[in-house]
């Protein structure tokens, strides 16, 4: 067996958080090496280290047995390591050809960009990818799947020995995935080493030679693909006994608080939310599982009035809501804790107190002026109730840890006295202890009579916490399970399913 890339005892810490713990990973020449693991398991961190955009805190990288230092992405490129990131890094305002050669344009007379050569080589690469595309098309005009292929083409232009792909298929159609896998097969035949990160078990089983499982920053298993099965992989990914970490909701359910019928949000190529119907009862915790881009965030954003619905009906507490503004939905009794707290949740320039009170500040006045005492006591009460750890109410919200920031956003949502809480990935990016606390809070809120609808990408979490699990794929609900009959494998297969739940 031929080891091309090796990471030896690599650790990486961000501040106090250890993202990678003493990982020793090997990728083999001419093989497709698959990496799996839940969000935050450390796969992407390791790939960033191997591609030179992050430095390990300790440990070393061996390339063909030689220790190397990859201090910049350029270093890695020059040694033949290419990476295709999960997030596209293209210039939408430039053409396909210009994107392919950005930063390394072919020159004529050593000075001017050789457009003709650029177009010719672009066409070559596009052909290899099975795309009949005009190299002069603006990348911004392409559907997201083709943009992804442009990104892949950009890496193929160079002579790569090691190609890292971080979830490249999340935006691709089935046909495009086939093309990509064919290209990967070709690369394998050319002795290129492919490191392939994916969540889609059925997909990577088709192409992978080896599978490596990450969990909580550590490498937990490494086997030839042929010696594994789906159930084994899922078990390795989830690892711990989920029920020890999460608190299950045990409260009795009451009236239907949220009822959604045929909700549809159109997108540029296909509906982002496609004819979704669901309901949430008082005291019920409903989980929505799905892969990235399945339309889950769009669903809750539409419920919250942040995106207009193109069809469908939303009722809260038995009343049909016609006005689709955040204000109206908030008054109706919905509150959303967004997926990306930095982008959508927190005002970084404001204090903890002001962030907590932001949505309800209008209620804390006398004669039009804010009542400082009431502000302080209202915020302090919520801080105590949710056990938010803060240095002080007047401190900037950005000085808190991720879990406590999440609680600040939750406190703000609770102050609006909602009937149904919509939580979009409430435990993303927070540590295990904080996750358990958020889970406990959700169960407590359900016991107090709230309806809770939460989105999660983590199998263990959604299985351990939800009374009912809905699965979304390509904008549609593809399956529904009760806590009694849900399994990891069923969720995984439903999340990649084309079938629609009737």
């Amino acid at each position: 067996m031929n080891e091309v890339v090796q990471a030896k005892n690599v650790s990486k810490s961000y501040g106090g958080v250890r993202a990678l713990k003493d990982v020793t990973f090997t990728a083999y020449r001419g093989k497709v090496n698959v990496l799996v693991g839940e969000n935050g398991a450390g796969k992407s961190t390791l790939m960033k280290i191997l591609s030179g955009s992050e430095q390990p805190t300790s440990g070393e990288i061996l390339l063909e047995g030689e220790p190397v230092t990859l201090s910049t992405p350029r270093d890695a490129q020059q040694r033949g390591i290419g990476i295709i990131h999960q997030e596209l890094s293209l210039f939408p305002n430039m053409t396909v050809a210009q994107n392919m050669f950005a930063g390394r344009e072919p020159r004529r007379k050593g000075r001017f960009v050789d457009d003709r050569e650029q177009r010719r080589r672009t066409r070559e690469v596009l052909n290899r990818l099975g795309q009949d595309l005009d190299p002069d098309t603006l990348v911004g005009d392409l559907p997201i799947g083709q943009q992804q292929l442009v990104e892949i083409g950009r890496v193929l232009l160079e002579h790569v020995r090691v190609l890292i792909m971080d979830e490249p298929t999340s935006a691709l159609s089935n046909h495009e995935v086939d093309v990509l896998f064919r290209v990967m097969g070709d690369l394998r035949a050319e002795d290129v080493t492919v490191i392939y990160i994916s969540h889609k078990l059925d997909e990577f089983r088709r192409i992978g030679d080896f599978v490596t499982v990450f969990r909580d920053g550590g490498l937990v298993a490494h086997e030839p693909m042929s010696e594994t099965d789906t159930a084994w992989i899922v078990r390795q990914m989830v690892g711990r006994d989920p029920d020890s970490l999460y608190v299950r909701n045990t409260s009795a359910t009451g009236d239907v608080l949220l009822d959604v019928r045929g909700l549809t949000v159109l997108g540029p190529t296909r509906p982002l939310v496609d004819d979704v119907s669901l309901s949430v009862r008082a005291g019920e915790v409903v989980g929505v599982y799905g892969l990235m881009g399945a339309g889950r965030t769009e669903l809750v954003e539409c419920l919250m009035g942040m995106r207009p619905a193109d069809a469908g009906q939303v009722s809260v507490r038995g009343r049909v809501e016609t006005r689709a503004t955040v204000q109206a939905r908030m008054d109706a009794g919905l509150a959303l804790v967004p997926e990306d707290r930095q982008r959508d949740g927190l005002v970084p320039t404001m204090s903890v107190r002001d962030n907590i009170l932001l949505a309800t500040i209008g209620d804390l006045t006398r004669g039009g002026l804010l009542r400082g005492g009431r502000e302080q006591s209202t915020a302090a009460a919520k801080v105590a109730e949710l056990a938010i750890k803060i240095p002080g109410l007047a401190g900037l919200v950005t000085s808190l840890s991720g879990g406590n920031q999440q609680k600040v956003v939750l406190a703000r949502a609770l102050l609006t006295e909602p009937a149904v809480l919509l939580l979009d990935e409430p435990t993303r990016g927070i540590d295990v202890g904080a996750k358990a606390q958020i889970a406990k809070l959700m169960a407590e809120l359900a016991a107090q009579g709230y309806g809770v609808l939460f989105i999660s990408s983590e199998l263990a979490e959604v299985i351990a916490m939800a009374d009912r699990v809905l699965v979304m794929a390509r904008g549609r609900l593809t399956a529904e399970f009760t806590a009694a009959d849900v399994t990891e494998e069923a969720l995984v297969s439903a999340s990649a399913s084309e079938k629609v739940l009737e």
Partner: protein
Amino acid sequence: MTDTEVRTPAPASAPPAKGNVALAKAALWLLRGRTLIVLVVLVVIFSAISSEYLTQSNLILMTKHVAINAILAIGVTFVILTGGIDLSVGSIAGLSSMIVGGLLFSGLDVGTGHIFFSVAVVIVIGIIVGALVGGLNGLLVTRFKVAPFIATLGILYVARGAAQLLSDGGTFPDLSGTPERGNEGFRFIGVDSLLGIPVAVWIMVLVAAAAIVVTTRTPFGRRIFAVGGNERAAVLSGIRVNRVKIAVYVISGACAALAGLLLTSELGAAYPDTATTYELNAIAAAVLGGTALAGGRGTIIGTVMGAFVIGFLSDGLVLVGVSTFWQSVVKGAVIIFAVVTEQAQQRLQSSLNKRTA
């Protein structure tokens, strides 16, 4: 038991020594108070050079000059706090100046003759016009999604042009009014004094006080900061972001009109080029006072102090006989210095946060 045993050893990953943090905190205090420090330094330098600088009459005169820019800058601060910018305030001041001048000098033409209004009514009309033009800025920014820089740049030209059209480019030379017309007394706001202090300065104090209350003690004020700090979070908190934005442009327009009236009253005549390029001084005052152009951070009191620094600097340079060319150079350097120190403050603040977190 010795006292060394009682001490808990510092963990390996502990932040740098305590003295370092104390030093950083002290530096942060200095940086926060930099506008005031600069103001004090200016006064000390100029009074050392010229004995006339720190006299009562000169201080009152300089403060009166400050008043107009301060009122403009307070309005602009509201807009900047939301993350916008208002380039049109100078032109709005000019437009309201011409409208008020026209109403006082030749009255309102109703076909059969000319109607004259009392000074109070004229002033209210002038301010309403400013507020409406501000509202137009707000509509362009919200409804039509024009970038604030472009929208207010456009209005800068439109309002200035409108001011010139009102008189075909001419001046309304006499605004003192007559008893028959019942429109005497416009000089009160820009020329007269109350209790030995110019009325214009009193007005600045009132505007500043009102602005401080609005920004720090009302839900609306809180929402302004939220919109500037993170618009998406503001939306998700149910804040009607567009209303907040329109409101700040209306406030800015009204403040600009008021400043235009004070200037017109002081000059005793209305001409279309009134307050040309004053928007730059106003923005400079806000920035000097620590208002972040990205929005979400700043104070009214800082802006007022920024206006004092600019005013006291300009008048001081004139007093000690520095050429107007050098005045510009110095003013520009001071503004850049302010922004550089602002960034130093932010860096220090965030590193302190990390260390104490």
